[in-house]
């Protein structure tokens, strides 16, 4: 071998080793973060500085409060977070502490990602929380959140008054007939191409989050919650069919856009729509722009009472955590009213406890945002508590989009039921 060949061989070897190190075993620094009292914590809010700051503060406070454990934060952008968790779970490298989107809790608990939380309550008892902020699966608590969000209808008081439309209250929400009459009146003014803004341009989880509560208010649901073994009769029953026809009629009657624009909230603020079905996250911005003219309305009662979706991001502990005591200590430590308050303040969300709500301007009883707190407490329905939820959500999104686009509601819902039932059966009804 001459020198050139040797050099080449050496270079090749170096490349191969580097590649192997890169692809095969990215072990360095990973691990479940147990040794030496170091606990890894993963959060989805790398792109959300305000919420990240609160996480960081709690972690710093915890690390300073004792010397046994040291929590280390790793933040991911929300878009990549679930993929990162699923990938690291398949290689058994989940961090000890992680946050999880509420509807995913049953799926991750069933998949063996999460451990049941056997925490003593900390400063705030779990029983004091809004029910939708506690992630349960099979009667065990797997996660808890510091806040929730609520769906609501925003409108201008002046516009409703002008058209003689009654302003609904939580105790007396609009009925279906009243709602239709209101839309007809608003459409007749000629000022709005589409008086109702429902955010139909969105995609993903927004569809089941925003529209399945309306389905539930009609009397249908995504799946039969008594058994979680079929969607037949609930997602394609007469009530669900009624909902689907109503949903499509909003488009054919010209009340709602089949696909709304990229920024529905701006369209509402610019006066392109009169009533906007939206989340509490836009409440502060709307109040700032419209002041006293803005009204925060409860959802319409389509027969079974007003409904909104419940559950936002929550905190949990991984099943393969090697320092469960440390993770538990951290989670208990975080359960302080001041942290509940800070989360809600930083994110503009609804605090999970009344004690925290009382400390946030606008969320106290009688405050500007009290309708949101009321909705989260009285109208919230958590999304179906089953590991099949991600599948059901995806099927529902497609079915609802098809219905809005003009598919035959009967066959669209029947096809959705067929797929959901096949999936439940194929996975042995997600037992175990």
């Amino acid at each position, binding site marked *: *071998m*001459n*020198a*050139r*060949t040797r050099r*080449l*061989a050496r*270079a*090749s070897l170096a*490349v*191969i080793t580097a*590649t*192997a190190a890169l*692809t095969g075993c990215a072990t360095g620094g990973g691990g479940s973060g147990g040794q030496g009292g170091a606990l890894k914590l993963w959060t989805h809010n790398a792109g959300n500085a305000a919420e990240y700051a609160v996480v960081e503060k709690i972690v710093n406070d915890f690390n300073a409060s004792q010397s046994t454990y040291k929590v280390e934060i790793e933040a991911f952008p929300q878009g990549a977070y679930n*993929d990162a968790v*699923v990938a690291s*779970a398949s290689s058994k490298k989940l961090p000890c502490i992680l946050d999880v989107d509420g509807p995913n809790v049953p*799926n*991750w608990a*069933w*998949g*063996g*990602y999460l451990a049941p939380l056997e925490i003593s309550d900390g400063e705030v008892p779990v029983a004091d929380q809004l029910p939708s902020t506690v992630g349960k699966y099979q009667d065990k608590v797997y996660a808890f959140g510091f806040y929730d969000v609520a769906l609501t209808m925003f409108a201008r008081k002046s516009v409703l008054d002008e058209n003689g439309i009654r302003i609904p209250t939580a105790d007396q929400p609009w009925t279906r007939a009243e709602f239709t009459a209101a839309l007809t009146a608003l459409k007749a003014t000629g000022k709005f191409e589409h008086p109702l803004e429902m955010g139909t341009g969105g*995609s993903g989880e927004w569809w089941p989050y925003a529209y399945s509560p309306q389905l539930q208010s009609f009397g249908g649901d995504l799946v039969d919650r008594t058994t979680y073994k079929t969607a037949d009769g609930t997602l394609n029953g007469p009530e669900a069919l009624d909902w689907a026809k109503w949903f499509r009629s909003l488009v054919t009657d010209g009340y709602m856009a*089949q*696909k709304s*624009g*990229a920024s529905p909230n701006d369209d509402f603020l610019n006066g392109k729509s009169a009533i906007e079905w939206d989340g509490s996250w836009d409440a502060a911005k709307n109040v700032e722009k419209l002041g006293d003219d803005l009204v925060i309305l409860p959802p319409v009662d389509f027969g079974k009472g007003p409904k909104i979706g419940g559950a936002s991001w929550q905190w949990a502990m991984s099943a393969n955590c090697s320092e469960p005591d440390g993770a538990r200590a951290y989670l208990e430590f975080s359960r302080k009213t001041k942290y509940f308050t800070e989360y809600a303040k930083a994110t503009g969300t609804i605090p999970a406890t009344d004690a925290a709500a009382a400390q946030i301007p606008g969320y106290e009883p009688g405050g500007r945002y009290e309708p949101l707190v009321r909705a989260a407490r009285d109208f919230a329905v958590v999304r179906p508590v089953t*590991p099949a939820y*991600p*599948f059901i959500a*995806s*099927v529902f999104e*497609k079915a609802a*989009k*098809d219905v809005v*686009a*003009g*598919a035959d509601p009967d066959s669209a819902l029947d*096809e959705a039921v067929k797929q959901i039932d*096949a*999936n439940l059966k*194929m*996975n042995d009804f997600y037992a*175990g």
Partner: protein
Amino acid sequence: MTAAVPLRARLRRAHSTTQTGARRREGIIAVGMAAPAVLLLFVFVVIPIGLAFVLAFTSARLVSPTPARFVGLRNFAMLAEDPVFLRSVLNTFVFAAVVVPLQAGVALGLALLINARFRGTDFFRTVYFIPVVTSMVVVSIVWTLLYQKDGLLNRVIEAVTFGQVEGPDWLNDPSTSLAAIVFMSVWQGAGFHMIIWLAGLQTIPADLYEAASIDGVSRWTRFRYVTWPGLRATRTFVLITITIAAFSLFTQVNVMTQGGPLDSTTTVVYQAVRSGYQQQQTAYASAISLVFFVLVLIVSLVQRYLTREKD
């Protein structure tokens, strides 16, 4: 150091080494050269494809407490009955059947225009190539805005027809959505194949054109009997690359329509991604990929047969 050894000494030594020794050294060099690429190909292509083949016959899920088990052809039986999958296959073939000739033709036309010698060809070459170097996601978002009911495209249609024609809601109408995606895909991709055609055009010897002009042939005859035969190899390359790219249609659909409205734009790759990630059905997505692989393989083999060297 080799360089320090006098030339004559080196020659003598080279003579004294046996033929096989030289060959072995060459072999080692070859292996050394190829090893990094082969390894990367193996890790990122061969292993994933192999895994997909195996997973397609199991019950593997993205999230599951139980290990995957062998289920035979269950996933394929489900595929055969899945109306959305069948629609996806149809859409994918329609897309490819329209895009391949259209994009290749447009690109050839642009290349012929640019190949002519006049001032400013560099400018046009750059303009036509800009969409290619722009990210497909960005292009898709921009075109979504252009295609809106009151977007630029419909405004232009309204203006040139003096308000007589009202453009459709391109992406939200099942009868126009796929055509809209075809159009923007051709717009985005044509520039790349224009460059390939251009490279082919420039390999055609100038004396052939000279001979043709001495013979006094028409422009069409010149194209038909000089240019077209001269582009033989380029043609095959363009055909196969556009076909493969067309079959893997995904980004535009994912950003612009998510397969809708009413499944009018759903594609095989889009369904594979949706099943595998959103719906956590790894095995089902693998089965879709396997079917997709076989379809593309068949089409490529047919194309290879049709474009083979005849003698």
